[in-house]
């Protein structure tokens, strides 16, 4: 494996959700540690699974991994980091200022921006902490899904640039105000990331045309930040000899080799490794060792869970019930890589096919989906995309035009500077989000959301907006109003569909997401188990072993988690285009 050769101090594993970043990062850390190097494994994913992989609690402090000498792990918990930041500010005045004032301060400091900055502060600390450098030969980062990671990696430059250029002193530093001493730290972090001697970036992908196109974009964006030393790892490739007697396996092998043959030009120059699909879950030490060492035998299966299993309904059954309401917001949520975008499109297509007006909106940069659908001739369907960059620009222009209209040149310059604060991106995306969901009163709005961590931040913003608006309305004596949050909490308006795969980690993560949503007063309406091998009938021995392990997870979803559930089989062809999406919704594969 080329990505393991002469490793520098920092290794980042990045890529969209579900491609196996955590497994590869953990396996790499284990391998280095067993070669006698001291290793720190860091997860920057707000929904980290490292603890589960090693079967021990980790959390927000350096924790030795019991089973692996030389290996220490750390999960950056954005919420805990934000809480620590709040305590630092609020602690000294608690009991001194009136209680409701203290509560007001805490509320102001619980927005998405504070959380992000606090996590980012901790992240740059890791890149620049001299003590850690002495203690560890390597720091391996298992990062959150791409969008979040690019933002995390861009923030040191963004904030450094912003701090360097703001000399008026009255700028929108948000939660960074009073953290002047951090400037040096951010600058040093930028330097460490751009230093090819110190930093290697491992792009993890699946052998899937759309995924590889997205990785090519990630490659460009990160190279632009100076992270030039990149490797590509294609994970979970189905071995060619599985194609033997099984039509599904043959189709997958065919589709994967076609995707690899058409590797985007930007990626063709990178060192590439292929890691085969394993028949077992990547949890526990034997599994991790086997992942990067073809000679090692992985964990042995418990006896196959054969026998009869209940048939579960497909997507059409859920869409029937959604359609009956005539309008409303349908949100698909879940970790990355579970197929939210595809399923959102399938739901939208199936609603539009019935002649119902539908607006499908996605934050996924995979624009090809929008293109195929636009050309698909479904008159009732409109497609849009929330692009954070475009939304931020739009927001800046709007504020300058309206609120900045009567300012003099100097005042406008000040406002413009404040609008360059990285904090404004969250607001801009939230506003785009609330603009779109207002439409759901008259038609169907089907929304594909960003991976879990980011979705939760968006909900935070929604909650903060709701509280602010409620306060405002109370002051003006207005009692009839609807905030986006109230819309999300109203089951007559909003149906949240949680998407998962029939595997241990995704199911656990989906259950955690459901708990978070319930805490926010949102009751998920149904679950979709996607890409199930168990539902697909296969004679491939490798796929059959995976299928056998899916059933207990399917049972868990049905019995413990979901009020309504749909089960969708793994597709032989990628479900792209109106016809295939319709077939997916109708349950024909």
């Amino acid at each position, binding site marked *: 494996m080329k990505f393991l050769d002469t490793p520098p101090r920092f290794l980042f594993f990045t890529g969209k959700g579900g491609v196996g970043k955590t497994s590869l990062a953990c396996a790499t850390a284990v391998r280095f540690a067993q070669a006698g190097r001291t290793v720190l494994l860091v997860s920057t994913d707000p929904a980290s699974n490292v603890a589960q992989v090693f079967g021990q609690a980790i959390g927000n402090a350096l924790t030795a991994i019991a089973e692996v000498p030389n290996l220490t792990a750390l999960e950056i918990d954005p919420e805990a980091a934000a809480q620590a930041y709040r305590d630092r500010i609020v602690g000294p005045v608690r009991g001194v200022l009136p209680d409701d004032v203290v509560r007001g301060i805490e509320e102001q400091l619980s927005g998405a921006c504070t959380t992000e900055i606090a996590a980012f502060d901790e992240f740059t600390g890791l890149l620049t902490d001299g003590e850690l450098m002495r203690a560890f030969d390597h720091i391996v980062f298992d990062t959150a899904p791409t969008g979040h990671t690019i933002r995390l990696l861009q923030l040191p430059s963004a904030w450094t640039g912003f701090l360097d250029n703001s000399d008026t002193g009255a700028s929108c530093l948000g939660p960074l105000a009073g953290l002047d001493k951090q400037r040096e730290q951010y600058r040093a972090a930028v330097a460490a990331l751009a230093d090819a001697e110190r930093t290697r970036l491992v792009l993890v992908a699946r052998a899937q045309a759309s995924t590889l196109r997205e990785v090519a974009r990630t490659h460009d964006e990160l190279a632009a930040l100076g992270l030039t030393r990149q490797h590509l790892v294609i994970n979970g490739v189905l071995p060619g000899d599985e194609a033997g007697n099984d039509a599904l396996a043959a189709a997958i092998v065919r589709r994967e080799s076609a995707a690899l043959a058409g590797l985007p030009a930007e990626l063709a120059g990178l060192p590439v490794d292929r890691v085969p699909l394993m028949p077992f879950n990547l949890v526990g030490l034997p599994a991790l060792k086997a992942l990067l060492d073809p000679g090692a035998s992985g964990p042995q299966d418990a006896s196959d869970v054969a026998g009869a299993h209940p048939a579960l309904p497909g997507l059409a059954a859920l869409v029937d019930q959604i359609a009956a309401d005539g309008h409303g917001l349908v949100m698909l949520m879940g970790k990355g890589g579970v197929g939210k975008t595809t399923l959102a499109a399938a739901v939208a297509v199936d609603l539009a096919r019935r002649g119902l007006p539908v607006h499908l909106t996605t934050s996924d940069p995979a624009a090809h989906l929008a293109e195929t659908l636009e050309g698909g001739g479904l008159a009732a369907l409109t497609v849009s995309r929330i692009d954070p960059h475009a939304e931020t620009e739009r927001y800046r222009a709007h504020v300058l035009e309206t609120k900045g209209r009567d*300012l003099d040149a100097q005042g406008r310059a000040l406002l413009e500077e404040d609008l360059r604060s990285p904090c404004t991106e969250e*607001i801009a995306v939230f506003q785009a989000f609330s603009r779109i969901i207002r439409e759901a009163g008259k038609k169907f709005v089907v929304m594909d959301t960003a991976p879990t961590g980011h979705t939760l931040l968006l909900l935070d913003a929604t909650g903060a907006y709701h509280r602010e608006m409620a306060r405002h309305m109370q002051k003006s004596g207005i009692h009839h109003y609807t905030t986006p949050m109230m819309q999300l909490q109203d089951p007559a308006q909003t149906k949240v569909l949680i998407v998962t795969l029939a595997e241990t980690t995704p199911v656990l993560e989906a259950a955690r997401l459901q708990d978070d949503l319930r805490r926010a007063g949102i009751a998920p309406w149904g679950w979709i188990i996607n890409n199930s091998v168990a539902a697909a009938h296969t004679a491939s021995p490798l796929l059959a072993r995976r299928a056998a392990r899916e059933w207990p997870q399917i049972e868990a979803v049905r019995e413990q988690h979901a009020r309504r559930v749909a089960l969708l089989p793994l597709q032989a062809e990628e479900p792209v285009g109106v016809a295939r999406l319709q077939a997916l919704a109708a349950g024909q594969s």
Partner: protein
Amino acid sequence: MKTIQIFDPALCCPTGVCGTEVDQALVTAAADLDWAKGQGARIERYSLAQQPLAFAKNAVVKGFLERSGQEALPLVLVDGEVALAGRYPNRAELARWAGLAVVPAVENSCCSGGRCC
């Protein structure tokens, strides 16, 4: 020169652009304060969200918060005495407190720097 102190409510930033709604009063106030500073006025600005200790340590501000609550902010002190509460000062007020020359009309500003728009 007199010192003007502004005690802001719990904002994320002085112009409010990273809040959920951008308040025109905040945007205008930020521009006016920046203008007065440029004229040499001595201005200090404290945010309840980021510098609550400054509120707690000032007896006048602390008393004001206890009496009227955070809803009554902003509070403006000139040389330590209450000059204004519940809204931000305009340019004329700032000029009077700081002893500055009369405020130029806002209309002219678009031609400032010799480049007319």
